[in-house]
């Protein structure tokens, strides 16, 4: 497992600085003959060295070379980072040389895997890094940093401490039943503490689920009768951001057809064809499919026409979307106002771009974006973590039910213990098979 791996750790773009990262037992031995100026085996650890990469008497590039010796490195192995400012061709050339000299191309996330397996980072941090690698937008980067900072660990540790304080008091009551001076944990005390923790956990879960949706992109559908201005709205949203609408082709089952970034948040548009072709959506796709679309969507932008009265189609769509996260948009407010519908609507004119910002703000509001991005908020964005949070929440709920049913305290404690363990699973404090299976699948381990 300690063969030497190499990867370009920055985006391969023309003109940008690129960093080539090498990690493993032979990192120094492989790079040393290529570096002209110094003998790298004698260079002090954690220094940056100026020089040139040369191969077969040909100078490839002028570089800054960071040398970090084990164990105080990201992977706990010897690590070298070569900062080149050359072209894509130069970077590729260096990579080619390194690969012929004994490096192996790293798999995605392999540096992190090593950091984890070598015990440098714990599970939440590892997952945070994985997400950092995968993060696409600025928003996601912020989330990933939040997770990395150990905030998640602190929050979970705090909750676990409170649960274990209750548990240990119950245990003392059981093991020393004859000592009447020791405080007896009462059902009421458990009820109070658990309700409070349940509330906190429920809030975190809600924010986390929103956070996850936002991170992966909000599945959004734009609905409205023909000629109401759906494509104008789309264009107005795009105009501002100068983003690109990408078509994801291939899978027929994937109903996401394009993604746009609005205010730093990714919207995955469903059925953009229906919008862009400006045809009679309901007629074309049928009622059944429009209901499917509504069910599938995490956000609905329902566009009404201000210059016309509310139609049957409008009423149908308003009714079907009333329990979803939706924004009702009154378009064409630049024309004469004939539409009486006014409940929670945002008035815009896609044509003049008036009110488009309000739509963006509304999206952020609906998904608690401000709260999620708040530096003080702690949220989880990883499916495994959210599942464990929910499981801990369920256990706390069971404990609370137990108190209401007047169950014996040591029985209620079983649920408290389960909650404590599930929270421990999040920060990798317990060992469970599922955890490792999960990890192995993510890290492509166990061949």
């Amino acid at each position, binding site marked *: 497992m300690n063969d030497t791996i190499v990867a370009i750790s920055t985006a391969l773009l023309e003109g940008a600085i690129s960093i080539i990262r090498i990690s493993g037992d032979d990192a120094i031995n492989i790079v040393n003959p290529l570096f002209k100026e110094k003998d790298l085996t004698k260079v002090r650890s954690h220094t940056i060295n100026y020089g040139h990469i040369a191969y077969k008497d040909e100078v490839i590039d002028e570089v800054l070379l960071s040398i970090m010796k084990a164990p105080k490195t990201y992977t706990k192995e010897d690590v070298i980072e070569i900062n080149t400012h050359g072209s894509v061709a130069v970077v590729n050339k260096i990579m080619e040389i390194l690969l012929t000299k004994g490096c192996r191309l790293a798999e995605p996330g392999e540096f992190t895997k090593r950091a984890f*397996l070598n015990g440098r980072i714990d599970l939440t941090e590892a997952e945070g890094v994985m997400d950092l690698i995968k993060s696409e937008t600025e928003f996601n980067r912020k989330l990933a940093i939040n997770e990395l900072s150990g905030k998640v660990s602190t929050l979970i540790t705090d909750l676990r401490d409170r649960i274990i304080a209750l548990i240990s008091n119950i*245990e003392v009551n059981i*093991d020393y*039943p004859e000592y009447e*001076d020791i405080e007896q944990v009462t059902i009421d005390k458990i009820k109070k503490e658990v309700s409070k923790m349940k509330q906190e956990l429920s809030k975190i879960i809600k924010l986390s689920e929103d956070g996850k949706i936002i991170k992966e992109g909000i599945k959004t559908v734009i609905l409205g009768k023909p000629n109401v201005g759906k494509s104008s709205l789309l264009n107005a949203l795009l105009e501002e951001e100068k983003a690109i609408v990408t078509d994801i082709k291939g899978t027929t089952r994937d109903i996401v057809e394009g993604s746009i970034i609005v205010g730093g948040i990714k919207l995955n548009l469903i059925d953009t064809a229906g919008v862009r072709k400006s045809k009679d959506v309901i007629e074309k796709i049928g009622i059944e499919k429009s209901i499917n679309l509504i069910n599938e969507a995490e956000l609905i932008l329902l566009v009404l026409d201000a210059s016309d009265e509310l139609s049957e189609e409008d009423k149908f769509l308003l009714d079907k979307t009333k329990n979803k996260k939706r924004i009702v948009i009154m378009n064409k407010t630049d024309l004469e106002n004939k539409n009486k519908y006014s409940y929670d609507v945002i008035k815009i004119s896609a044509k003049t771009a008036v009110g488009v910002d309000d739509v963006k703000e509304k999206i952020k509001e609906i998904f608690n974006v401000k709260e999620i991005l708040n530096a003080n908020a702690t949220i989880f964005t990883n499916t495994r973590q959210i599942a464990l949070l929910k499981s801990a929440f369920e256990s706390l709920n069971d404990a609370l039910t137990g108190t209401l049913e007047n*169950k014996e305290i040591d029985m209620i404690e079983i649920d408290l213990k389960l909650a404590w363990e599930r929270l421990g699973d999040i920060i990798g*404090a317990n060992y469970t098979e599922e955890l490792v299976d999960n990890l192995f699948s993510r890290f492509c*381990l166990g061949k």
Partner: protein
Amino acid sequence: MKYDVIVVGAGHAGCEAALASARLGKETLLITININNVADMPCNPSIGGSAKGIVVREIDALGGEMGRNADKTLLQIKMLNSSKGPAVRSLRSQADKVTYKKEMLNTLKHTKNLTIMESIVKDLIVENKKIKGITTEDDKTIYCDACILTTGTYLKADILVGDKRTPEGPHGEKRANFLSDNLAKLGFKLLRLKTGTPPRIERSSIDFSKLKKEDGDNEELTFSFDNIAYYDYKNQVPCYLTYTNENTHKIIMDNLNKSAMYGGFYEHLGTGPRYCPSIEDKVVRFKDKKRHQLFLEPESMYYDDIYLQGFSTSMPHDVQEDMVHSLMGLENAKILRYAYAIEYDAIDPLQLKPSLETKIIENLFTAGQINGTSGYEEAAGQGIIAGINASLKLDNKEPLILSRSDAYIGVLIDDLVTKGTIEPYRLLTSRAEFRLLLRSDNADLRLSKKAYEIGLLPKERYDKLQLKIKEINEIENQIKKITFPQEKSNLSEYLKRPEVKIMDYKDKLEKEYSKEALEQVEINHKYEGYIIKAKKEAEKMIRLGKKQIPEDINYSKVENLATEARQKLEKIRPRTIDQATRISGVNPSDIAILMVYLKRFYNE
């Protein structure tokens, strides 16, 4: 002279070990320093207690003696935690120290294949890392195929009182001077441990009228599944309750420098138990507590000593007098025996396999306080397992290893051989993660079949178990048919409600069933949801327990293990992945690495 099995020491571990081995047909020699101290209780006059009471039930379910012996000799018995759930209920008895010893000796003497001898063992005869026999301090040589060391607190024991250190065992007995040094020479790492005992007060000098009385339970209770009550529950001997006060605390604080523990007389004092601290320890550590609870327990009906539980100390005699006289009801008390601390050698239990055989010397087993535990019940629980496994080993059979979801004894031994200990280890309910499965009421259902298959449990007891199982099944079937039309429910469902008791419906059953079978059915229904959860968690552990680690694994070849994890794994050499997860310092990531390694190189 040659025996199949030699057991060294006849305390609670030694008695169970010798009985198990002899009952399994092995010619067994039990060596004790003093035959009058067989099954002695040098500390509290009590058998059972939280968790410990369940261990006694388990010993009985395995075919051991402690439960029956306690039943025969008890002065008082109660069920602890009876207001809590069934998982944490546990029996505690006051035992008569005189009759307890007498009864046990009587049983030992009447057991086939068992010989008792008075002597002190000096050294072990070891050839090719295998035990061959022992030599005694009076220069006898006795050969054996297996040996079980159950030496209690006698290895190089020192009694500490104030600034006095006396080389002797409990209440002035001779100590074993050479055995522990010789164990060290054989490669064992030794621990130095310490425990203490409180003063004994003359019964007639105590003013009981000022003290709160503590009675036994108002019903017949027994440790043994024989269910024979040897006592009259209406006529039990009471205990009494008193408290320390500010004056007591002042005396202790003023004289702290005279305590053997706090006086700094010795540089290398052994490690004492946290959960059984001396009174000076309690006063120092819990400064804001105005009083500490003390129990006055009768030691025997044949002499006058009252045991002052909670008042163990290593203060000099004159200070002990002042301390005792400051207590309510004990103003004029006469101390018959002073409190003392005792220090002794034990072996590091990480040197043991889960069968209690030592890793260093084949066919040598150890059990009880020599393994770093504290308590009669913990000792006896290990003793019976060591006795069984020594016998199984000589028959070339697989050892009996109880898991953490089988028994408290399993929890105890797993903790010892996996985590080790630095202080005398006491079993607590909180150490058992599956205690809802490890109840006092179902110890027979958990263990008796295993014991019968090994050959330790008599046929009639096994038949009794089978009958109980049959009754449980019958009741289960019938309660589904007892319906409550208004409630649209049957008794099976109805029993889940906290207020519904099966006893109130027993007349509706087809015939009369035993109390024990009815109780099982009620518990199984009332706590069904919780039991399912506990079983699910236990299954996870059992699954990991099936992932064996090859005995020949070379941890230095497992790349990427953290250094600490590597050292611990090398030292403890866990048998399964499950055991490895419980080693402190071995993190989840190390386990992941280990599993990948096993997959790759052993295709596990």
